[in-house]
């Protein structure tokens, strides 16, 4: 996968565990954004024409275009609904998250 994934992060317990100076490893993700979501996008790949508009306009870059099929990285999707709103074929539905 070309996207960064969540890595384990150990909370610093000693001053020596902190990075030296205000810098840190690029692309280090310690947590997901999945809990932000109240609705989730569900892609209907039969209706999808692979125009990739959703891929371009996703603010979080969570739309994946593997093997000509659209899928969503639910770890980082915030459920804003831009993809469903912009889809010209209405192939993406926003479904309420069940707890």
């Amino acid at each position: 996968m070309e996207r960064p994934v969540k890595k384990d992060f150990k909370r610093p317990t000693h001053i020596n565990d902190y990075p030296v100076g205000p810098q840190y490893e690029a692309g280090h993700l310690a947590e997901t954004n999945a809990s932000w979501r109240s609705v989730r996008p569900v892609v209907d790949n039969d209706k999808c024409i692979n125009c990739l508009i959703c891929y371009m306009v996703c603010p979080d870059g969570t739309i994946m275009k593997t093997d000509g099929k659209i899928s969503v990285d639910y770890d980082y999707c915030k459920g804003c609904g831009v993809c469903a709103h912009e889809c010209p074929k209405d192939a993406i539905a926003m479904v309420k998250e069940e707890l």
Partner: protein
Amino acid sequence: MTNDTVLKIPRITPKNMTEKEFFYGHKACAGCGGSVAVRLALKVLGERTYTALPAGCMAAVGFIFPQMAFNTNALITTFPGVASMASGIAAGAKALGQKDFKTVCFAGDGGTADIGLQALSGMIDRDDDVLYICYDNEAYMNTGIQKSGLTPYGTLTTTTPAGKNIHGTKTNKKNLFEIIAAHDIKYAATASIGYPQDYINKVNKAKHIKGATFIHVYASCPTGWGTPTNTSIEIAREAVDCGLIFLAEYQNGDYKLNKNPKEFKSVKEYLTKQGRFKHMTDADIEQVIAYRDMKWERMRRNWNS
């Protein structure tokens, strides 16, 4: 640049765009327009990019230790000094003998048109090899929606409240694109995230130009504008369609309008959709339309020969 060199630049489309994400897992509000602008630009510019960000939303949401959303070499600069910092990065990388890299700044409208204007002017004057991208959400959104130099007439912000006597912001949007073009910059453009392919093309063009380049991209902000999160892209597109935002380029001393519609869509419809313009009366909207027509008349007369 002649047409021949334009043709040599490989066109980037979502189909052949890199799968890698360089702005991922950030903490921006759902439906953030600025993050679309940053994400697409970084995907076009690629891995070998130095990114400088002043205080602003994208710096605030991208670097929350230990959550580092930028996958490129990125750093936060002082608020007024993003352009100077980027100049330094470009000079430093050149001194180290590095090749095939690009330096880019992502500043908000306040960080560009108000606070960072002096450093930006110096950067363009020295013609440093930096691409400066201003994502314009028309107020200081990071600090809680205060008026900036690019806030248009009638906008409700926390420092320009709307009441019985004063209906929001009294001033018009600064002509930032013309100010930048007046430096005789190598390449400057305006774009909107509502037209992502156009924006990608402009970033791609700027990437292949050696020297100072500038892109002013219109990016919606659902939190500050009072719009639903799912209409972020639509609202940025409508702003262009109703003529309040224009798509243009400046190169080799020539202005070029990319989109010159014969008829504009309804301004009223665009304004009343947003919470920040809800209070506007018909007279206010008339004034917005009159200003738009004046500006377009001037642009068509001077730019499209």
